[in-house]
């Protein structure tokens, strides 16, 4: 009798253990399936969200060219069809790629910094820019999904100095998957020189073709080390268009003249003294500048466009709330770039600012930070911005559900 009872207890225990073991195993399978469904849903959401953003101009339709408050978020170029984006709407997005800049320093006025590399600036008032929270709310995903948009040119055109005297520049043209061999390359070289008090620019134009590794060399007759110049080169092959720029200056005492877009809707730009942004010590240079705006035509050529106060002098502010700057106005809605050449003594400098992000193939990163999320879905589209081939990649993640991370920790 005792033996039977013990057998019964052992059998029951074994039975319960087996049940518990297999419940756990089944639960793991079910949990994996649930996670699969959640993640697949995030992937669908990423694709939907990307198309919603890229195929709608938002409202007001021309919000990229105004300071208007948005009631609907979208990046499509007004009046265009398909995946064609507004380069001005992209310019109003607060970029994650550059640290905000305060101008004048200690004034409390902050500017969105779309980083362009040496000699290239694009500073838009943060008060005129669209932040991630606003976009997220208008898209209806606030609190449910997070996203980040990476908008960058498909074709990268890199320019570097290969030889200084005589100047020889190396241009490399690459796509994300392959170098662009046999591409037609055109360039505009703007060289600074002195005529009287204010510097001027001399333009050289040329065309060439990349070799089988997507590389070409541009030869010039002057000494690159002792000259100040900016080159803008674009490569074209079978519908793809990419652009790059490079600047060299002989001025080495700080950043020189820095353009700030102070009134976005009016196109008002201040040409600021670098001392008003960062104290670069004494002596503080005195600048004589010339500013030229080049507009992008439908044939993808750059034509000069007359602007107000194209020459002037900028001395440093000296504190007391007094700041000196040049002021000019750019045509709203017309993409192009502003080229400023300046002189301090016998040293020359140059800076360039795109007006509409496509004209200088600027990249921008917009949205939230996906760090810490176990699962993010990505999707991408090829788009056109100012005739330039761009790629837009979205990274999307869920802010609710299982195995997600938010400010309060893991869920």
């Amino acid at each position, binding site marked *: 009798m005792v033996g039977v009872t013990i057998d019964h207890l052992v059998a029951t225990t*074994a*039975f319960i253990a*087996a*049940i518990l073991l*297999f419940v756990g*195993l*089944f639960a793991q*399978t079910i949990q*994996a*399936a649930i996670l*699969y469904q959640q*993640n*697949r849903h*995030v*992937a669908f959401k*990423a*694709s939907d969200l990307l*198309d919603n953003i890229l195929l709608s101009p938002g409202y007001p339709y021309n919000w990229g060219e105004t300071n208007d408050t948005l009631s609907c978020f979208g990046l499509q170029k007004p009046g265009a069809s*398909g*995946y064609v984006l507004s380069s001005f709407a992209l310019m109003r997005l607060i970029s994650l790629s550059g640290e905000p800049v305060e101008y004048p320093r200690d004034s409390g006025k902050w500017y969105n910094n779309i980083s362009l590399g040496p000699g290239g600036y694009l500073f838009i008032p943060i008060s005129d820019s669209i932040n991630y929270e606003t976009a997220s709310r208008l898209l209806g995903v606030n609190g449910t999904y997070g996203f980040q948009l990476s908008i960058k040119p*498909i*074709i990268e055109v890199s320019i570097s100095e290969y030889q200084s005297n005589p100047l020889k520049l190396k241009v490399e043209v*690459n*796509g*994300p*998957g*392959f*170098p*662009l*061999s*046999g*591409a037609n390359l055109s360039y505009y070289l703007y060289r600074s020189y002195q005529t009287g008090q204010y510097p001027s620019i001399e333009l050289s134009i040329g065309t060439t073709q990349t070799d089988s590794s997507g590389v070409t060399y541009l030869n010039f007759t002057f000494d690159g080390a002792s000259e100040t110049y900016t080159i803008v080169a674009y490569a074209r*092959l*079978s*519908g*793809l*268009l990419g652009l790059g720029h490079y600047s060299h200056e002989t001025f080495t005492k700080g950043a020189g003249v820095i353009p700030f877009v102070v009134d976005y809707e009016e196109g008002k730009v201040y040409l600021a003294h670098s001392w008003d942004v960062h104290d670069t010590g004494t002596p503080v240079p005195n600048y004589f500048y010339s500013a030229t705006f080049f507009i992008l035509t439908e044939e993808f050529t750059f034509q000069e466009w007359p602007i107000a106060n194209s020459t002037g002098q900028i001395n440093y502010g000296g504190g007391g709330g007094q700041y000196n700057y040049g002021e000019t106005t750019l045509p709203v809605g017309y993409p192009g770039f502003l080229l400023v050449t300046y002189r301090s003594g016998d040293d020359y400098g140059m800076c360039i600012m795109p007006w509409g992000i496509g004209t200088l193939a600027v990249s921008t990163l917009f949205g939230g930070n996906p760090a810490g999320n176990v*699962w993010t*879905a*990505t*999707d*991408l*589209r*090829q*788009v*056109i911005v100012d*005739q330039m*081939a761009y*790629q837009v990649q979205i990274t999307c993640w869920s802010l609710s559900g299982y195995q997600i991370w938010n400010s309060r920790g893991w869920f």
Partner: protein
Amino acid sequence: MVILILAVAFGAATFFAVLPSPTQIASPNLRQLALTTLQVLDANKALAKVAFEDLGDQAWTDLEIALSASLPPNIVYNLTVYDMVEVGDATTYSKVHSITNSESGLGTDSEASTYLVTSTNVTFTVTPQKISGTLYILNCTDANGWWITGYTSQSLATDLQNLLSPYFNTTVMVQNTTDLGALLNGNEISSFPHENVTNAVIINTCGEAVPIPSMYADLFPRDSYAEYCYELGKRVNQYNWTWVSIVGYPFYYVSNTVKLSSSHNSWGIYGMRNVGSGGLNSFLRGLDVENYPSYSYDGSWITGSPGVVYFSSNASYYSNYYGLYPSPYQTATRALPSWIQGTYHTTVMASVFNPVSDRYAAATFKHTGTGAFTAIGLTRTPDIRITGLALLMYYHPIIYKSEFTLTAGERPTQRLVILQLSQQGGG
């Protein structure tokens, strides 16, 4: 035994519940990537040029390089171009050329998009037949609208002009109620040589309100200007007009911001006077003036609310024909009843929606004599594409499509490009 059963059950469940690889869970939308890649490659018609080049041409090599350069490294592709040849009613496709960067094929997980390119030496033209008669659009700056929430009558007038003017020889914007008064008196109001008051189409962009000229307000004030609506109906009959109401209950208000500046429509909109449901009855009596030779008032409410209504088969056809794509189902709360055909001697023509409970949500009621009334009895806010579709269905102008080639049609004019993409690795 229990362990054996559970183990078998678990094994079976695991065997059948195979979860896909992470790549399959969240792969990029390759179909959209393919489509957008083709669109980018066709910027400035570059792809269209390549698709018609000879096979040995450098352009094909350039296209291959551009494709390889533009797609992410883990994506393989196959681009194929087909000739499209129309034989009778059928279209046949024959392969012209194919380029790929995958030697072993793209596998079963690939996605494809198609893109139609037209030879760059071909021109297509689309010429609509012109509707005889002038199109008048009420763009009265001195009249307010109602039930056009979110729009102004002026913005609607501009949209309608853009939408419909290609189908008319002459389009005239009626800028104020004074011009409307002149028009009602049978006078031309523009310097356009082909303006013709008779057989015209008049679109009222003020929604449920109708502009009233000061002179007509003085002459026909009875029953809160219902008498004016009767006069409008008479003019429609007299000049063989087609009067178009774009939304809601027609003639429910009259508006003149100067003459009626101290009146409001009972909802706080000044410059407007509430006529009520009698306005529509008066208009219909005026339209049927042969049987209602003098004005009399009838204030009964005659429209109905059938709710959601759906495109008729004719509307679906013409929606495609004219390239107008409003939603094929809409909400109707002011649909006209079928019985007005008998009472006011009209015939329903070109109904946009299938009738529900003998009510027509958007249709043209043609009087047996002269004149017609197009009423869009949908709820606010108006979609002027419905108005455009209703009018085009009524007049059904022909769209002439022409194709011109410089090479006497020796080469096919259209080619189909298919880009197939597949993701490699990451499984």
